[in-house]
């Protein structure tokens, strides 16, 4: 943490504590305590009546992630994250590069794209559900006319594809926004120098512009993975409820099922601990990136 240079700093014995304590109390009650609780619960086994509890070692972890069905929740989550991240970032980058070259009207396009990001995920899910409701939605009818046997309630791949579409629809706007800002920060003469070189347009982009966007790309990678891991819950709950089978059950959705629908606190605890580790890893990655940026500036 960088300190104020020199440091004209107020003195006060109680005031600084009074100022930070409210925030710390909330952090302690609603972040630290639940975290400790989850770790504790993850090593306990509750009986079928939810009354007694006893130490059970790693049983919950083994049970939580042993793959009973055709596909495990970790696999679903990771594949969902990879597919949506690549697609949403590619579309965002492509549109940002196009918009960057049209001059000041760029701002109009920002408005035309930004709104999908503001739509609540659950509502986005509702719009797309209406669009692809088998036998009723406009998209579903078009697909049937094209000869697709469309029913995402029965076909795993279709359900998965529908979720990907909604997530990309929302996240592309976010990526567009950050890539537009990133492109704005590249000095104009870099573009000019690159074009004097006489390299092809595409080669120029990948060799000169894209590397300069790497801080943005890196940041967006983390944010898109975060979204697919955690914020996708609303879309999944509205459209597929994790089905068919477990085909679209992410780890967060599994916590919801095990913890709330099946009342198994031990399993939910173990899964929460797993999520905490993922979040910690992503935080570490992001923090390294923040540090490096501070260093370079």
């Amino acid at each position, binding site marked *: 943490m960088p300190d*104020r240079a020199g440091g004209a700093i107020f003195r006060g014995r109680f005031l600084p504590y009074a100022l930070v304590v409210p925030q710390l109390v909330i952090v302690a009650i609603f972040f630290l305590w639940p975290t400790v609780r989850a770790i504790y619960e993850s090593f306990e086994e509750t009986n079928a009546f939810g009354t007694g509890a006893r130490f059970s070692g790693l049983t919950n972890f083994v049970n939580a992630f042993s793959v009973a069905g055709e596909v495990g929740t970790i696999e679903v989550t990771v594949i969902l994250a990879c597919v949506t991240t690549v697609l949403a970032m590619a579309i965002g980058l492509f549109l940002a590069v196009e918009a960057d070259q049209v001059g000041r009207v760029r701002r109009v396009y920002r408005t035309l794209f930004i709104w999908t990001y503001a739509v609540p995920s659950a*509502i986005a899910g509702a719009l797309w559900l209406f669009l692809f409701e088998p036998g009723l939605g406009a998209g579903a009818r078009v697909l049937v006319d094209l000869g697709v046997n469309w029913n995402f309630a029965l076909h795993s791949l279709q359900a998965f594809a529908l979720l990907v579409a909604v997530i990309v629809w929302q996240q592309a706007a976010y990526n567009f926004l*950050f890539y537009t800002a990133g492109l704005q920060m590249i000095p104009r003469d870099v573009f000019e120098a690159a074009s004097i070189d006489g390299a092809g347009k595409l080669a120029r982009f990948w060799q000169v512009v894209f590397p300069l966007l790497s801080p943005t790309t890196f940041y967006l990678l983390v944010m898109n993975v975060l979204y697919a891991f955690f914020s996708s819950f609303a879309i999944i*709950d509205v459209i597929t409820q994790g089905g068919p089978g477990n085909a679209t059950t992410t780890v967060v959705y599994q916590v919801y099922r095990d913890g709330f629908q099946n009342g198994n606190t031990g399993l939910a605890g173990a899964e929460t601990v797993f999520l905490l580790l993922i979040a910690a890893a992503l935080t570490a990655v992001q923090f390294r990136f923040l540090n490096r940026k501070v260093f370079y500036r």
Partner: protein
Amino acid sequence: MRDRGLSQALRHGILIFAAAIFVVPLYLAFVAATHPARDLLTGVPLLPSGQLGPNLWRVLTRGLPNSAPVTTLMANSAVMALGISIGKLVLSIPAAYAIAFFRFRGRMVAFWLIFITLMLPIEVIFFPTYEVTAQFGLLDSYGGLILPLVASATATFLFRQFFMTFPVELADAARIDGSSPLRFLWSIVLPLSRTNLAAIFVLEFVYGWNQYLWPLIVTTSPHSATVVMGIQEMISSAQSFAVPQWNLVMAVALLAMVPPVLVVVVMQRWFVKGLMAGTS
């Protein structure tokens, strides 16, 4: 130059086409909300009809079976979103001020305790957080909806970062003038932070309004639901009709997205500033 003109036209074409694709789900939702339910059975109408008013009136005043009127849900959403956004400002500004302007024992500990919550979305620890909230007897209340979401590492960091850019002389002058640290915060620091306040407020309002999982598990009665989480119940309710009431569901969807979309589009400058603040 002619070549350039042509490729510019192509660019606009691509961008407008993409924007149109993005708008399709919204447009069809709007069209559906303007029709009676049975129109949606036979085929998808592509043009609006005249039922928007009656559909909106119906959901706003009566809602769907098993759900409260949408006016109630919207009011709950507004309380939650305002509670979270204002609460985050009220908690994070003093904390950031203390960390930036004071030297005190445990300052680093405080900083790191707040920092670790940075990337911890409620979806990560929602299950144990739910149990803690239940222990406090906060289920089905505004307190339960708001309190677990008001801690904000993001806001604390942005304000700390911003406060660090304040010239040292400013604080020195205030001290020599004999004004207290709180007075300096209130009459110098806060007025200078207006744009940052607006940026964070817009960002967090949208964050609060758009919450789904947390209100879903914390509220139990239909009357304390928020409009965003309420959509799930309304979809199943609408599907249980002989003629699925998708027109009403889409009317609710439009109502639910108006506040965040409007706020983001109208206050775009601040929203984007808030989004970007953490990264540059």
